[in-house]
């Protein structure tokens, strides 16, 4: 089949077994990433976005976690049925990950050079000299100043932004087809965040690399994403192109998030806030998980899990109430 998406996740369920019950962290999400596309998974803490990403790499800690159901197709191959050995060939080589906190994800006792070289050593057969050259080139690509000197530096000697660049260099080392970036700029200052976002955008201009970008920051989303999936309590509640979702949000949660953003233009007016708080994954409401906080909720929202409603041109939303209203 032509135009098969690079990654497609179908009906993924991930549960975590806890002392006081089962936390259904991911409850049947489906999304796909095409070649050369940046896709954002957007959601608040605890909505299951990181767990979804970890499932793709087979990194969900088991126990307590378990992928109960679903399939993850990468280049047409189901990752979930791969053996650990096969997974290791994919990790870092075809799919690479950039984590949120560069200080805790880098090993403090190895030099930067060692750590960037590690994926190259694991996945490719290159002479030591070639490895070093490749390492230097990668460091230049991600904009680390003085790569020759930095090669022998330890993580604590670098600033937060530089550490994140090292993480990105490691991710790029084997020219992966897909990079998963889990909140890569959350811990950084705004000016440094702008530098890193620019770096991500520049990967895409010269190549057909795909990025799955996970964040809670809608401002960042607007600047990097081609398509967005909005997640709430383990479900995808809305999907569509960035432009569609920002211009015409079709789910009350998305609308609420956009309205709740403090902006200079809204000065003097009251922010419209979403009441209540994010539900605990172990105790979710029946029916639509958002109904306790939704101002449009009707009787049926409490009883029935909502279906995806298709608005055309790739925009879908899990709110039949709004959908029917639009039809009438």
């Amino acid at each position, binding site marked *: 089949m032509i135009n098969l998406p690079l990654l497609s996740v179908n009906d993924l369920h991930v549960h975590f077994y806890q002392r006081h019950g089962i936390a259904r962290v991911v409850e049947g999400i489906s999304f796909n990433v095409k070649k050369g596309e940046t896709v954002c998974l957007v959601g608040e803490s605890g909505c299951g976005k990181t767990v979804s990403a970890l499932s793709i790499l087979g990194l969900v800690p088991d126990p307590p976690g378990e992928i109960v159901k679903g399939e993850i197709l990468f280049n047409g191959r189901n990752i979930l049925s791969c053996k650990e050995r096969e997974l290791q060939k994919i990790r870092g080589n075809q799919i690479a990950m950039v984590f949120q906190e560069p200080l805790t994800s880098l090993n403090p006792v190895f030099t930067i050079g060692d750590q960037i070289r590690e994926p190259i050593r694991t996945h490719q057969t290159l002479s030591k000299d070639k490895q070093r050259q490749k390492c230097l080139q990668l460091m230049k690509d991600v904009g680390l100043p003085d790569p020759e000197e930095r090669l022998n530096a330890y993580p604590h000697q670098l600033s937060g932004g530089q550490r994140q660049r090292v993480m990105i260099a490691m991710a790029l080392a084997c020219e992966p087809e897909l990079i998963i970036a889990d909140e890569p700029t959350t811990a950084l200052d705004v000016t440094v965040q*702008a530098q890193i*976002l620019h770096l991500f955008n520049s990967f895409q201009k010269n190549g057909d690399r795909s990025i799955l970008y996970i964040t809670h920051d809608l401002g960042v989303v607007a600047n990097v994403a081609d398509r967005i999936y909005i997640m709430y309590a383990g479900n995808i509640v809305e999907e569509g192109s960035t432009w569609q979702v920002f211009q015409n949000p079709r789910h009350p949660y998305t609308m609420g998030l956009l309205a709740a953003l*403090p902006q200079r233009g809204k000065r003097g007016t009251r922010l419209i806030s979403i009441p209540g708080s994010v539900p605990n994954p172990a105790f979710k409401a029946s029916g639509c998980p958002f109904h306790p906080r939704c101002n449009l909720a009707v009787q049926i929202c409490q009883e029935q899990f909502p279906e995806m409603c298709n608005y055309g041109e790739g925009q879908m939303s899990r709110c039949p109430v709004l959908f029917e209203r639009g039809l009438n």
Partner: protein
Amino acid sequence: MIKNTLEVKNLKKYFKVQSGFLKKTTGNIKAVDGIDFEIKPGQTLGLVGESGCGKTTAAQLILRLLNSDEGQILFNGKDISSLTQKELLPVRKEMQIIFQDPYGSLNPRMTASQSIEEGLRVLGLKRSERKARVRELLQIVGLSAGNQDRYPHEFSGGQRQRIGIARALSVEPRLIICDEPISALDVSIQAQIINLLKDLQEELALSYLFISHDLNVVGYLSDQVAVMYLGHIMEHAGTEELFNNPGHPYTKALLASVPDIDTDHKLDLKILGGDVPSPLDPPPGCKFQGRCQFFEERCTRTVEFKEISKGHLVRCWKAAAKV
């Protein structure tokens, strides 16, 4: 004339860096290097800057949690920078702080009501008065009275921040320093806390010193904004003026780096190169010189504030030259 609630004049704090066996002083970290500002009653001053620029140190100096090296802190017209701890007690009641991390700033072994009434106990209120006040405060911040005997771990982040706000309000302060009060919260919760802070300000005529790195929030909440960089205030103006007509290259870069949901799709953010340099013995002159695209020779000399329009102060030769 209305008296300013808070006025800070030439406030400085240097941390000594010591090394070696004899702990010789080898340098100074100029965390706060001569800042001036004022806050009028019922107004909000936003203090913006990246990490390490000295905004939290400034807050601690104002509250006298740290002692300043130089400068004056005038609270209601009275200099509090050299008061003794005992003399400070009545002043402490007038200014309170809300911390960034609602997980770390509440004592895990105290119930919500114990945390809130601690300040009241210091003031010598009777048990029955305290209980009544706690109930009232919980209601003000939007928590039900049934929550008062619960411990912090039973609350969500937003609820904890509400407890922190109730605790700050308990002693009826006139000034509240908000040190990044919403940055640890989820997006949908942030708006709730912002609305709460705004409502409280209107009802109780509070003044806020609102410290944040998030320009969108500061732009929404503040009347005046001061931009800090490495211990200096680089620009100070009314919010509208600062955002519409930024004078300092750093402010411009900061504004351009904020990802905005209204921008065109994948618009390239304008990039400011480099990182915030170390505040350890910075070069003389403008602190921003290492990253500034307009760097000239004269930037290595001390730059004073210039007023480029009424109430709009900029610490830059270039901006000053245009006037």
